């Protein structure tokens, strides 16, 4: 009994690390650029396909492909901000929501056309390895993914709090107009924010590849989680998104364990609806 609970919590916590990478990206973009990136999940999907093809063609370990996916997605992020998002920043909600939504539809369906709906997997030497801790079972690939995810989240936190560019980003998040008066170039800050957020999504893709299949719709799973985590963790708050993601991973895993294999998402939606009903500003939020 005790062990089943502990095992479910561990499983949830480990996958929660991946959710955290995706939600931190969403919340960073929301905080700094004030838009919701509906396509964030599709960038995880792109990261997974890059890792898959590098592993398949050149035998590159998916974890090493981090060094390819992260810079590649950083560049894509800068391009997306510069050529697409910059053109719809304004007081109007409709273009902002539907531009990234259209981007998500486009990437997903392009993937469907190019790669078909088949599931792609990469098998590594550590894919089936696991640590045993008492009666508990800790898969090695998931543990590595969780560790790297926490490391990257920590690095982002240090970047945001110690470097000038990071401080400029936080300033732009707090008050864009005042930040501009202080001489911060908003487009440059926005480009970096998009770049970092997409690099995190790419990292999530590489980290997932040793134990998760790549397919065109894979991003939808993660982006839905990320949206709920971002609402739960207070919009625009990086630390809130991290904690909420880990909680959601655990909640989903307990839902699968105790409600039914197909009920993980129901638990997640229930959490979203309860948050909206009782604390719409998120766990640490104040009234807007």
């Amino acid at each position: 009994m005790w062990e089943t609970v502990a095992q479910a919590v561990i499983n949830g916590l480990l996958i929660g690390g991946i959710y955290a990478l995706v939600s931190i990206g969403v919340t960073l973009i929301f905080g700094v650029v004030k838009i919701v990136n509906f396509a964030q999940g599709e960038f995880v999907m792109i990261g997974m396909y890059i890792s898959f093809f590098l592993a398949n063609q050149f035998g590159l370990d998916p974890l090493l492909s981090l060094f390819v996916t992260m810079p590649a997605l950083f560049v894509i992020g800068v391009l997306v901000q510069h050529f697409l998002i910059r053109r719809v920043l304004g007081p109007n909600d409709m273009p902002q929501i539907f531009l990234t939504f259209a981007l998500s539809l486009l990437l997903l369906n392009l993937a469907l056309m190019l790669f078909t709906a088949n599931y792609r997997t990469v098998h590594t030497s550590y894919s089936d390895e696991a640590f045993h801790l008492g009666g508990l079972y800790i898969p090695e690939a998931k543990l590595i993914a969780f560790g790297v995810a926490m490391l990257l989240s920590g690095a982002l936190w240090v970047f945001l709090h110690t470097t000038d560019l990071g401080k400029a980003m936080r300033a732009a998040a707090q008050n864009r107009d005042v930040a501009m008066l202080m001489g911060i170039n908003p487009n440059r800050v926005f480009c970096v924010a998009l770049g970092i957020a997409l690099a995190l999504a790419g990292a999530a893709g590489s980290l997932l590849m040793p134990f998760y299949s790549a397919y065109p719709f894979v991003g939808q799973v993660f982006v839905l989680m990320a949206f709920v985590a971002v609402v739960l963790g207070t919009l625009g708050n990086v630390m809130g998104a991290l904690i909420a993601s880990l909680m959601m991973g655990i909640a989903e895993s307990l839902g699968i364990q105790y409600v039914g294999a197909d009920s993980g998402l129901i638990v997640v939606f229930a959490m979203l609806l309860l948050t909206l009903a009782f604390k719409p500003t998120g766990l640490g939020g104040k009234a807007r």
Partner: protein
Amino acid sequence: MIRHGLSARTFLLLAIGLAVMIALPLVVKSSFAIDIFIRILLFSFIGTAWNLMGGYAKQLSLGHAAYFGLGAYTSTILQIDFSVSPWIGMIAGGIVAMLASLPIGWLCFRLRGPYFTIATIATAQALMLIFLKFRDFAWGAEGTTIPNLGNAPLMMQFESKAAYYYVVLGLLVVGLAITSIIERSWMGYYLVAIGEDEDAAEAIGVNAPRIKRDIYMISSFLTALAGTFYTQYIYFIDPATAFSFNISIEAALVSIVGGIGTLWGPVIGTVLLETTSTLLQSWLGSSIGGVQLTVYSLILMAVILWRPTGLIGLITEAWQRYAKRKPARA
């Protein structure tokens, strides 16, 4: 600028348009073509229902599949378990959807802008999961076929496709009439004010929560009617089709591409998107997945980046340029 009646010329144009639409199935006999017309009318109607709330009040829902599905399931359950005619089931489905929109709206309207959109996606997905899981009252994931009664107009079943065409044409006329009435009423102005700036609208005394609740109820009611019609038309229901995310997407897409917050926008948008999709399918075949939505998303991006007022905006501009060039008649 409140216009009270229709001008004689507009009335004449509408009458001619309606006559052409009524005569169409008498001229075009190919069931393939009728099928496409039915799709165009159906999605024009769903888009019109979405546009009332999404277009005028700019409450950008991506969860209208929830009401489409509730309408479809209500009438089907009534028909199969209680032998109630889908004509009555259709209205019942509309009422169920209206009632469901109250708690859903209460939750979702706590958020604004993009997070309202996300909350609507989540509610529609949650409803789909509920219908997938609870098989005792709704057949679970396998769904069910609608018993085929042959030609039974009282049970909304017809042998000729043309009959379905007239049903959905009737729905669209009702939807457009309601939109037109609301557009000209005070409610229409309140909706536009909320869409422009909700805080400012509230500051000048618009009861935004009430207006949003009311328009959500009307929009949900109409969307549910489409759900019943669609199920009767394809003789099949399951959670994946009834609550399909694609329904939510297309409802919003046709309105935005055609012209968001305009009477004819959803119709024009549907004609463009459905025609493109049909041409693509006959050109490429339907073997490659994803082609249709790839093209839709490119069209959507193009509209957002270059012409946020949609095709209606493009047509109006072209007309104004033409009208200006024409010398005034004495």
